[in-house]
């Protein structure tokens, strides 16, 4: 009996020990990997799924040219998932060397873990104004990815068939007229409706659409939005008009219409003539109908009545940040890599040709931009016909969870426009006065 107990005791002891040991074993592996042979490993944690493959290829190329540097890329897609994933990454202790930050709020939250990048070449080459949102106390804490722009993407062939000259649309009145013409001929044009408004995607309504109308009151500067104690909806009526126009002439019900239905099912298959989206949809459209993507689409401005009616909101979607908690060698190498990406000839080529980015830096040959949407947006930017991106300066979650949700309520006819404005104004003030 005693012997039996002894054995079982030993058995149990081994069991629990093995549990502890496996835990330690893993930890050992992690740490030895990092410090082997004095090599530097740069862990990149980034959010842009669209260029994951191309980015990894470019990083491989960089590794080959720079012996002793290893780049690990992890991609977690989608705006809101990225923030959560990044936090858990940091909490787990495996902090990345390079990660993404969005704007002033992220800078505020992460500033203790962000290195000053003002000594990089890239920060000097960055286009004027692009660093506003990530500068703090004389330090530059982020480097822009690229430029992106959005507006009303239209189907050229359908416009032609309906006898509308897209170039002549320069104001809200023009747009409304064009939409009504399209609507009256939609049977002949093979359209289900003129627009596809994705009310389910609160970022389309609450961030992008709203930005066109709120940016003017913040002087197109994301920091002004970030510091604003309240929001006036100065161009709120113009906002409502464009929203109503999109909703009234959209495929119904708009509240449950999502991104893939809007872009892939309806627009790419040419069932609608107009969608409010940006140059990032090019890839999806190309995947479905290459010829249509290359030749058949263009972009129209979102008209803000009383302000600019022929401007495209152009901005920086995300910034690269370098983790200041890492050792000096890693930080230096990380900066070198970013510099290489945006200022070396090879890097530049990859940025334009492989990533298909609209560059946010000087010294790029813009004629090489390959997709038509990016080209047009770049042209708008060159002509100065732009509205800034200020939605990164909205209070955290305000754009999507307050405004976007209230707009859904409005689209379902559960709330009046005045209520939308009032509720969201109150929410803005509440979160700013915390």
């Amino acid at each position: 009996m005693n012997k039996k107990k002894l054995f079982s005791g030993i058995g149990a002891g081994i069991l629990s020990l093995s549990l502890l040991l496996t835990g330690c074993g893993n930890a050992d592996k992690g740490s030895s990997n990092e410090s082997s042979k004095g090599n530097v490993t740069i862990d990149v944690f980034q959010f842009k799924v669209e260029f994951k493959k191309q980015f990894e290829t470019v990083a491989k190329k960089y590794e080959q040219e720079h012996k002793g540097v290893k780049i690990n890329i992890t991609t977690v897609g989608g705006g809101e998932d990225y923030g959560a994933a990044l936090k858990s990454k940091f909490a787990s202790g495996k902090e990345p060397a390079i990660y993404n930050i969005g704007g002033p709020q992220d800078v505020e939250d992460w500033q203790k873990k962000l290195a000053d990048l003002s000594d990089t070449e890239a920060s000097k080459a960055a286009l004027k104004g692009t660093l506003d949102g990530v500068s703090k106390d004389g330090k530059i804490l982020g480097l822009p990815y690229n430029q992106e722009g959005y507006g009303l993407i239209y189907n050229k062939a359908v416009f032609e068939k309906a006898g509308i000259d897209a170039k002549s649309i320069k104001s809200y009145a023009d747009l409304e007229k064009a939409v009504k013409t399209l609507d009256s001929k939609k049977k002949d044009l093979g359209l289900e409706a003129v627009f596809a408004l994705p009310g389910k995607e609160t970022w389309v309504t609450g961030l992008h659409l709203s930005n066109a109308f709120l940016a003017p009151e913040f002087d197109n500067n994301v920091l002004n939005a970030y510091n604003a104690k309240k929001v006036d909806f100065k161009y709120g009526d113009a906002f409502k008009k464009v929203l109503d126009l999109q909703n009234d002439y959209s495929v119904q019900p708009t509240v449950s219409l999502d991104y893939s239905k809007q872009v892939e099912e309806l627009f790419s298959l040419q069932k609608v003539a107009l969608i409010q989206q940006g140059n990032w949809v090019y890839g999806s459209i190309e995947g479905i109908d290459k010829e249509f993507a290359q030749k058949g689409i263009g972009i129209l401005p979102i008209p803000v009545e009383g302000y600019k009616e022929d401007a495209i909101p152009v901005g920086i979607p995300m910034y690269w940040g370098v983790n200041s908690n890492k050792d000096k060698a890693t930080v230096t190498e990380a900066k070198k890599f970013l510099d290489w990406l945006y200022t070396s000839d090879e890097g530049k080529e990859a940025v334009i040709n492989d990533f298909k980015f609209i560059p946010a830096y000087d010294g790029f040959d813009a004629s090489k931009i390959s997709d038509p949407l990016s080209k047009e947006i770049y042209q708008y930017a060159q002509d100065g016909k732009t509205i800034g991106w200020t939605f990164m300066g909205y209070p955290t979650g305000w754009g999507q969870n307050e405004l976007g949700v209230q707009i859904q309520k409005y689209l379902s006819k559960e709330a009046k426009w005045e209520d939308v404005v009032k509720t969201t104004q109150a929410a803005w003030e509440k979160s700013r006065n915390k």
Partner: protein
Amino acid sequence: MMRTRDLSYWLFLAPVLLALSMVVIIPLVFGIYYSFTNWNGIEVGSFVGLKNYLAILDDKEFLDSMWFTVKFSVVSIILINFFGLSLALIVTSKIKSNKFLRTIFFMPNLIGGLILGFIWQFIFIKVFAGIGSVFGIQSLEGWLSTTQTGFWGLVILMSWQMSGYIMVIYIAYLEGVPGELIEAAEIDGASPFQRLRYIIFPLVAPAFTVSMFLTLSNTFKLYDQNLSLTGGGPYNSTQMVAMEIFKTAFTESEMAYAQAKAVIFFVIVAVISLTQVYINKKREVEM
């Protein structure tokens, strides 16, 4: 009953205790601690006392989602148990292919919640609308775009998924009902309904306890199906508590506040579940 608890007793228990404390108890304690701070997910700030808990009292969004969750749970629990028991009665009756049917009914439970959500989203939005437009039934169009249809969409999805699982539990108890009791009742002239009401139901009462507990905790804590089917839309009106908490934590970056909500949620679920088990257990004894 109390035996001497020697070393080997504790050693055998150690792996479980260790695992349990690592993945349940320690996180729970940490969670409760965080709920009293202003943690933002990146660094722990200062201790704020009960501030987070007081803020919950007038957080309309949280209370709305709570109310929605309660409504959803009540309806789903009734429907899931009803369908589960019905299916169990069908497959334990003497029809052919009952083994095969068991497998079929259980299948939905093998599919992950997220995927199920997307499948049903397709059914509700595409198939329903298709049938609706062919037969001119207005009410089948525009599903998931209103609160009502979103609610029933979730209920249908949940019932479809969980009934098979609950069925298995009922089958186990139904097969344990002694044949001679039923036979005796039959000879005494009890109608099929009477046999069900007075013989079978009391004997499967323990199954009610288990099933109720499972459905209750599952429907209350629902997240993945909610996320993939409606995503809380329209205008967050079909957002359940788990999703609301996740949103507070990760999109609004109010980790500590979300933690406080989670603690309250935990307490509510625990209290309801335990009361339910207690009441049902008592009923079992009486019968």
